[in-house]
């Protein structure tokens, strides 16, 4: 079945089986491996991407359902070689250990800050409650989101 999607502003077309999940389409068809594939049951949030500007768990959506829609993945967060403040915050605050949950965490955090530029601790924790960090590094993840809220201007890549 033919599917046409825009991913991070770039148009892609592919002929796929209707049963293909969006996460596999992004990783295997488009070869974009930034989006992680985790629990497969819509619990862990590692596969979080945006579909038409809303975070969704891409393991629980068929790729054909995204036909004609606009998708944003973690590869699109940095703009012109400049990290998004959320990415910079994860660096500054050690917001990751193994890094498996990180792409989903950052996509969720960016969406949260777009809706609520200065969230409280509680609002951040509620906001990322659909993203599980099995290293349990939540304290630093919350700090990283605060850092991003406090530094809304994008920063030069320092890594």
């Amino acid at each position, binding site marked *: 079945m033919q599917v046409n999607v825009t991913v991070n502003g770039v148009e892609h077309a592919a002929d796929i089986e209707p049963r293909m999940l969006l996460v596999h389409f992004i990783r295997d068809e488009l070869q974009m491996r930034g989006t992680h594939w985790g629990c497969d049951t819509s619990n862990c949030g590692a596969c979080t991407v945006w579909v038409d500007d809303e975070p969704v768990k891409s393991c629980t959506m068929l790729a054909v359902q995204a036909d004609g829609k606009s998708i944003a993945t973690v590869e699109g967060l940095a703009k012109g070689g400049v990290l998004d403040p959320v990415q910079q915050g994860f660096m500054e605050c050690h917001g990751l250990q193994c890094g498996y949950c990180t792409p989903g965490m950052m996509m969720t955090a960016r969406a949260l800050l777009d809706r609520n530029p200065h969230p409280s601790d509680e609002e951040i924790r509620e906001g990322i409650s659909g*993203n599980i960090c099995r290293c349990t590094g939540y304290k630093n993840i919350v700090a990283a989101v605060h850092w991003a809220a406090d530094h809304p201007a994008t920063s030069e890549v320092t890594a």
Partner: protein
Amino acid sequence: MQTPAPVDYAKATSVADALAKLAEHGEEARVVAGGHSLLPMMKLRLARPDALIDINDIPELAGVRIEGDEIVVGAMTRHRDILDSAVLAEHYPVFREAEKVIADPIVRNRGTIGGSMCQADPASDLSAVGSALKGSAVVVGPGGSRTVALREFHQGPYETVVGPGEILTELRYPIRPGAGSAYEKVERRAGDWGVATSGVYVVVSGGVVTDCGIGLAAVGADHFCSPEGEAALIGKAPTEENLGAAAAATAASCSPHADQRGPADYKSHLAHELTLRALRRAARASQGA
């Protein structure tokens, strides 16, 4: 890797188009809304439809509006839009309180009220709310549309009155001026199904409860409600003693089963305690406090 079995797929552009596509694909076709129950079941082969008819892009099926003395919620309205609805928050805070503890914000971006109702999980929060409010469902099929009371909508666990070739299009809830409402849930961890839940509305007028509805999920309440608990409260003053007696009658009307979420006696205890807490808050809200 969990992947659904091969399946046909068609995107419907209107309710009429969805009905035509359902008819075309036969009895083994299934409607897919948010997909957050159906797709996981397909991965596990607990569901194996021949075809999916996608109703996500039918705008007429989404949204919350007031029509006469009812609030109408389209079947494709997503959890997040119910959580954010000013209309629902004004008339029935029970919706917002329930939605805040349904899954997580990302799942709520995708999951829908119609999908949740049709999945008919015995722990479904919105089924408890719908039965508490004595709402109704509009089901459309090849022969036209019919309206079914939500207290008759569920035929058993994971079974509803929606037949093959039919689509749930709307949920309707009567507006009750002066009603207070509340939702209480105990869950093992954030975003989980409830161990037990209770959602209620109460109308207090002239110092007595003139109307109320009690809905429960995950505790084996027939049709997600307790007419016994309601009967125990109607006509009585909303005193702690009377609310407690109604909560006790409610718990006695439930038949919870022991499972991985807890033993039966614990769930009975929760049915009592959560109903009491919800009744207290709803009665207080109805009296403007």
